[in-house]
């Protein structure tokens, strides 16, 4: 038989048994589509999370108080010594490294904000003028914290958009004095809404100079020191320098944890990639399971078509011809199923992207290739048994429809 004739014959029999074909197509395409959808979701989540971290600045080194490593029964635990506070002077000492381009000490707390008779709880961020660039934030109007001495507690503040809307409503906010806890601060700027930035919702914070925050929250201790380095390569030396410098300043006690943004991104990247593989794998199993369905339906199809196979043999088809005919039919079906599955899957991904623009749900290339290969090979593999059964039919019995 000529190959195009075999294909055409297979195509006609797929068309001839419409219900059977549609059932198998559904099984196949839903599995293929689920592989694409699930991996696209996983991949989208990975990109979203790493993207969010990257938006914090990729060359960022973060210093936090306390040692995150378990030290076992060391002297400090025996003596009940708590880690030393991270202070503004510690932060100042870190500026000496040549690769440090920006540095922002950070203090965080919750206080009540009020203006006239309106009030609400807010997160206040005590920092310096550098944090704006360091965190890639933008101003909607006004100006940011002045480039003053870190120790000066200037009574000014920059507020998030939502705070502005809720406290001031239709009134102009710039230049107004608001009350934060016991003190009064003048609004000098409003942050542009750039959405959530993982840890803090920029729309709902109030930023004041770090010294003001220290007195407002009544603590000399910093929450974090954020450092931006010149390049990715210089991060490691900045990490070492930070640990050593602060250790020296804290009487040889290594009581801070220094992490790089890179490491955090990498960790999340690894976790989410593993997750994507896992869901992709689960979906691939469902694809293989649909192969078993294909086998069942093919077996039924072969027994339905016993007389036809007997006839083909009587007309001069060899076992090999029959085997090729059935397998070609299976491949055509798998190809069609994969094709329909890709349409479903990619449309689904498009719908997800439409509904959740933040999640860039594109199925990764490996998932597309894998689902294609798995679909075709399961289709083929699970058709071998029915095809062999068909090719071995005794034509005399087959013609009688047995």
């Amino acid at each position, binding site marked *: 038989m000529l190959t195009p004739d075999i294909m055409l014959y297979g195509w006609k029999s797929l068309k001839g048994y419409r219900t059977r074909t549609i059932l198998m197509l559904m099984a196949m395409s839903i599995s293929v589509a689920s592989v694409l959808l699930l991996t696209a979701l996983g991949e989208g989540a990975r990109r979203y999370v790493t993207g969010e971290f990257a938006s914090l600045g990729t060359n960022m080194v973060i210093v936090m108080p306390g040692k995150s490593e378990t030290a076992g029964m060391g002297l400090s635990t025996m003596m009940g010594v708590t880690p030393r506070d991270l202070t503004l002077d510690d932060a100042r000492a870190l500026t000496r490294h040549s690769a440090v381009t920006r540095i922002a000490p950070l203090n965080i707390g919750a206080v009540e904000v009020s203006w006239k008779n309106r009030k609400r709880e807010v997160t206040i961020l005590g920092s310096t003028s550098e944090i704006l660039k360091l965190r890639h934030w933008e101003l909607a109007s006004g100006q940011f914290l002045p480039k003053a001495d870190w120790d000066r507690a200037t009574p000014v503040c920059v507020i998030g958009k939502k705070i502005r809307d809720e406290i001031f409503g239709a009134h102009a906010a710039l230049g107004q004095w608001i009350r934060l806890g016991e003190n009064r601060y003048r609004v000098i700027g409003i942050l542009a809404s750039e959405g959530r930035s993982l840890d803090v919702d920029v729309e709902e914070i109030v930023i004041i100079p770090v010294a003001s925050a220290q007195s407002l929250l009544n603590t000399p201790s910093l929450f974090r020191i954020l450092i931006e380095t010149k390049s990715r390569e210089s991060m490691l030396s900045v990490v070492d320098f930070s640990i050593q410098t602060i250790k020296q300043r804290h009487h040889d006690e290594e009581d801070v944890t220094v992490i790089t943004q890179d490491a955090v991104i990498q960790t999340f990247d690894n976790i989410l990639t593993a997750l994507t593989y896992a869901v992709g794998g689960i979906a691939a199993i469902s694809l293989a399971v649909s192969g078993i369905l294909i086998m069942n339906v093919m077996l039924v199809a072969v027994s339905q078509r016993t*007389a036809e196979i007997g006839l083909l043999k009587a*007309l001069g088809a*060899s076992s090999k011809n029959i085997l090729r005919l059935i397998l070609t039919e299976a491949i055509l079906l798998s190809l069609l199923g994969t094709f329909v599955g890709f349409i479903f899957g990619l449309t689904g991904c498009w719908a997800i992207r439409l509904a959740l623009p933040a999640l860039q749900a594109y199925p990764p290339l490996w998932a597309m290739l894998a689902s294609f290969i798995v679909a075709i090979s399961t289709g083929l593999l699970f058709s071998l048994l029915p095809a062999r059964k068909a090719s071995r039919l005794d034509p005399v019995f087959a013609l009688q429809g047995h």
Partner: protein
Amino acid sequence: MIKLENIHRDFQVGDQTVHALDDINMQISQGEYLSVMGPSGSGKSTLLNLIGLLDHATSGLYFLNDQNITDMDEQQEALTRNKHIGFVFQAFHLIPRLTAQENIELPLLLAGIEPDIRHDKVKKALHSMNLMDRAHHKPDQLSGGQRQRVAIARATITEPSVLLADEPTGNLDQKSGADVIETLESLNERGITLIVVTHDSHLGKRSTRAIKMVDGRIQSDQQNTR
């Protein structure tokens, strides 16, 4: 052209052995018109299937065109069936999803003939069977007589030397039956060896040679005078 020597065909039914064909010896020359008659279970269909290479003898020798069939492998048998043997069945055995034209084309398709040549041959066959206006009809849109004529066109499309018909009129009314027989006989007049298995004694009398079978044996083998 067909020579059967000591052919036996046994079936195992439960723990009993049934001798469907019991020591058959016969010769059929090219262009003969043979009818095979006998009661149900006398082995006439088994004989036809064996001549058509659909079934295999338990023992004995079968020569077709001086070739020993018993030596052939499955592939060669399939090829021989395709080239030299045409089948016409009582139940027509047309593929329902294919048109008349496509059904007739099947043996050529299986033989791997190029589409152009196929279409020419099918066209001629449709013409000679008077089915030109039915070419694109599916089997369920055809009358019984038309279906059997499609089946005959399919059986003869590769210009085989032997045409085997198993109760070709069994599913047809009187008139279409007569039509089909006329068609088969005109093919025989043009040289094809025609072997018809039938219950119909009237049909049996039309053939030039009549074989009667009982219990897997040839009871009588006689020439008819028409």
